[in-house]
Structure formats: C-alpha cells, structure tokens
C-alpha cells in the first residue's frame, strides 16, 4: 500500500510524462525517500499504481545503484572511488571509514546508523577526495584524520 503522501507525489510526476510507466524511477525514489528502502511489497504497490507488472518495476529498481532493495542505515555514506579521488587518497579515506565504522563496503553498522557504499565520480574532482553523506557532499579529504572524520560523522546521529 502506498501512503496518501506517496500517491500525491507520484501523481505530480505522472503529469510530466505521456506514459505512466515513465514515472517508475521517480516513484521508486519517492517511496525510498519515505521508507528508506524499497521492499517487495513497495515494488508491487508501485507496479499497481503505474499499471505495469512488478517484474518490470523490479527490473528497473535493481538496475539503478541508488535504489536500495535492501534496508540501509539511517545515513548512507557514498565514497567516490573514481580516478582523481583515488590518486589523492581515497584508499586511505576508505580505510579510515571502515575502521571507524567497523564495517566493509555494502554493510550497515550494527546500530543501524550508517551504510557504506562506493560511488563513481561525484563531479567535484578539483576538491578530491570527496564523499557524500545523505545529500551533503564532503570535499578536500586528502589529509583527513580520524578526529576530523569523527567530527563529520557526528553530524549524522
């Protein structure tokens, strides 16, 4: 079941396209914004709303890396591991994060606070290395140490 808010938001997007299925990605993002991730039940509800099959919606949901088909933490950390960030110390940043959070890529901390994922080039290469936490981009992390990293993470309870 979709909530009234979710339905209203999806309807606004539907008005932008000549075919309802075109709003699939928008609908997935809307549901994910409300629920944190996209469950099988949500896939079926979106399919019913857009008049397509759950298999169609799932094919799309599993293609895009920013649609989560499994639960994630309250905050998702995306570390840019593309070339300029790699040259300027992404491996070091990644190791610091993994040590501090006690998790590897693709995992969520036991308290459900953070999920750690790699991401391709964030388009801020003049201030590499960079990462995103939720919707915030953190830059200039070349000489980041454990203390500064802790201070950044503390902003995400």
């Amino acid at each position, binding site marked *: 079941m979709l909530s009234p808010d979710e339905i209203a938001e999806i309807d606004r997007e539907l008005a*932008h*396209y*000549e*075919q309802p*299925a*075109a*709003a*699939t*990605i*928008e609908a*997935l*993002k809307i549901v994910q914004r409300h629920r944190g991730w996209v469950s099988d039940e949500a896939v079926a509800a979106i399919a019913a709303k*857009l008049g397509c099959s759950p298999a169609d919606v799932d*094919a*799309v949901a599993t*293609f*895009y*890396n*920013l*649609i989560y088909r499994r639960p994630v933490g309250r905050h998702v950390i*995306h570390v840019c*591991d*593309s*070339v*300029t960030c*790699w*040259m*300027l110390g992404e491996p070091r940043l990644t190791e610091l994060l993994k040590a501090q959070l006690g998790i590897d890529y693709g995992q969520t901390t036991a308290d459900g606070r953070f999920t750690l994922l790699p*991401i*391709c*080039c*964030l*388009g*801020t*290469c*003049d*201030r*590499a290395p960079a990462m*995103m936490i939720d*919707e915030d*981009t953190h830059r200039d992390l070349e000489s980041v140490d454990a203390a500064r990293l802790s201070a950044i993470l503390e902003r995400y309870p």
Partner: protein
Amino acid sequence: MSARTSPPSKPLTDRIRPNHPPYGLADYERHGGYQGLRAALKMSPQDVTALMKSAGLRGRGGAGFPTGVKWSLVPMGENAPKQKYIIANGDEMEPGTFKDRLLLEGDPLQFIEGITIGGYAIGASIGYVFLRAEYVEAARALRKAIQECYARNRLGRNILGSDFHFDLYLHTSAGRYICGEETALINSLEGKRAIPRAKPPFPATSGLFGKPTVVNNIETLCNVPHIVHYGAEWFRGLSKGKDGGTKIYGASGKLRRPGAWELPMGTTVREILEDHAGGLRAGLKLRGFLPGGASTDFLTAEHLDVPMDFDSIAKAGSRMGTGMMIVLDDQTDVIGMVRNLERFFARESCGWCTPCRDGLPWVEKILASLEAGQGRPEDLTILRQMTRLLGPGRTFCAHAPGAMEPLQSALGHFRLDFERAAARSAAVAGGRP
C-alpha cells in the same frame, strides 16, 4: 535593458559569482539575460538553427557533434509530428568532469534560457533536464529557477507574449554512468533500464516515446542564448581555432590549483595546466594526461602545446571529450590508475552486450593482478587483444570502446611500466615453490 555595453569575453561564467547564490530572474535580466530568447522569438525556428551552424557550435558533452546539424535533423513544418522533445543531458558522470555542475549551480537561468531557445528551434513544447542524482545543489537551484520562470512567463504558455509554449521538467536520476549515453538516457527517462538503443533510427526522428527528440549537453545549451544575442561572428571570434566559442576547461590530479576555467576554445594544454592549474605540486613531474575524461586516450608531455579543440586533440591521438583533464604525475602508479579506470567501466557496464559485460571485468582482473605483482607473462598480450576485441564496432555502444582508450594508450606510452610489472610477477611466481 542590459547593463552591459560590450559583449562578454567569457559569456558562460560572466554571471557566476563564486560562493554566492545564483542570480534570480531580475538580476539575470539586468545582466543581459533573456535577450537571446527575445531575439529568437522574432526569428523563424529554422533561422535559429542556421545561426548555430554558422556559429560553429559543437556539442560539449564529448562527441563534438555540430549542434545546428543535430537540430536540423528534426522534422519541421506542417507534416512533422506534433509532439517533439528536447532533453538536456545533465548526467555528468565522466570521471574528472565537473563543468556542468558549475554552470547549473552558478547560473541555472542561462541554461533554462538555452533549452527554451532549443525547444523553439526544433518545435518542441516539452523539455526535460536529466540530472544525475548526486547533484543535489544543482537540482535545488534548477527547481527554484524553473518556478520563477513559470511565475514570470519565461516558461509555460505564450512565453513573453509570443505564441510559443514550452514546459520544462526536472528528472533526477538514480545512478549509472551509462545514462549519459543519449539513447540509454532516453530509455531511462521512459522509466526503463538505461540500456542503449540501436541506431538508426536516430533520436531526431524517433526518440523519447518514439517522438522526434534532441539531446544536448548542459554546456552546449548554455552557449545558445549568447549566440542568438551577440551573433555567430562574435561567437567564432571568441575561439582561437575553427570551432566557435569558449570552453569550460578543467584539470584535476596532483596540481597546485586544480579547477575549471572558461577559456577560448583552442587554448593549449600547457596554458591550462601551467597558467591556470599552476602546474604540478612541488617535486612532481608530468607523465601524461587524459584530455577529456576517463574514456579518452592518454597524451604525454610532448603534447603540451596542442590546442584543446576537437580536431587538434584527435590529430594528437586522443579525444577532447569533455575538456576536463586528469593529470598523471611521476609518483602515481600507471597500472594502478588504469586499473582504477577499468574497474569504473566494468562496474558501470549496463550488461546488455557480452563483450562489454564479460570483457571489462576480465581486463580489470588482469590489471589488478599485475598491480599486485601476481600477473602472468601472457597478460600483456591478452590486454592488447582486449583493446581490439572491445574496440569500436565490436560492442553495442561506445562504453567499452571508450574504456579501451586509456588502456590502449597506456600500453603504448607506458609500455615499460607494464613490462616491468609482468616481469616482476614472473619473478615472484618463479620464486614460489
């Protein structure tokens, strides 16, 4: 209307003030904004397209296709399909590239004016901005600007009192580099997996929902209002070469002042890297550079005096691509860098065709083993074969051939590094019981 007395020499960034929010509509118009659209609405659509051709505007997304030619492929007139679309490709995910972000965050109205003129020229009443998900600030700036344009009759019905109607919608994506390929982008906008389509038919005749569609890069569209306002001759005069205009060039890597700068098209690599990026950090030397993103061939120090324009960089053996350079210094491991690039391409393959889906992870694996000193003597032969087997004509789209560009050029320019790594691997293997 305009506070300006002479045309700007850096039109794209003229109104961008670093660390300030972008201009709202009133300030934008005080600084020459919407003069281009006003002029365009007094011209025939075909004349606007012809103006792009005579200005020598080439697409800034990487391929460099002439914008006026692209627009002229769209059916026009009484018998043309009633619904047509124009799409702005803001899926800026080419590693090393951050120019469209700058333009959208700094001056969203310039882009909106550009896509509106593009819509007028091809007879499209609907435009979409396809924006990568991570560009949150650009999305905010665009939403605000679009809203103001609707409120002030710069979008919607009867724009500026004309009989031209144009709606603009923002679509934020959900990831995947392949969305930047224009037919994959169209599939994604239709709510499908972003898998490239076979061409022909080309989008100009059958694109979004099967309707005539033009896909232009953000930077390309940002040039359009200025060309209409100041003319083709002025635009050609901005450039040092035969392609018109300025270009947002950029450089990243271990440089003193990495960044992005609007400079005359055809500025040399040396001027960009030395005068603007300040050269390499102390103690480092230039070994090579990717001129325009991850999917371009390495060039080396001998190419420093090549002008950064489409034809000159092609003649030097690479592609200008996005014009955003990635610099390799003498302390960075070449094999590690190429391995990083190929991991990116392997991960971002859409999986539709076998050579790309299976070949790229194989390439990545070989490079990783060479980097770790666990390669095999035949690895270099296999890598060279792969650059042919995944090259142009062997795959469904340009993704894998693009991935082969840095690899094949690295195997050429930095052959000794690869041979040394293979030899080191052989020695390690020989020492094992």
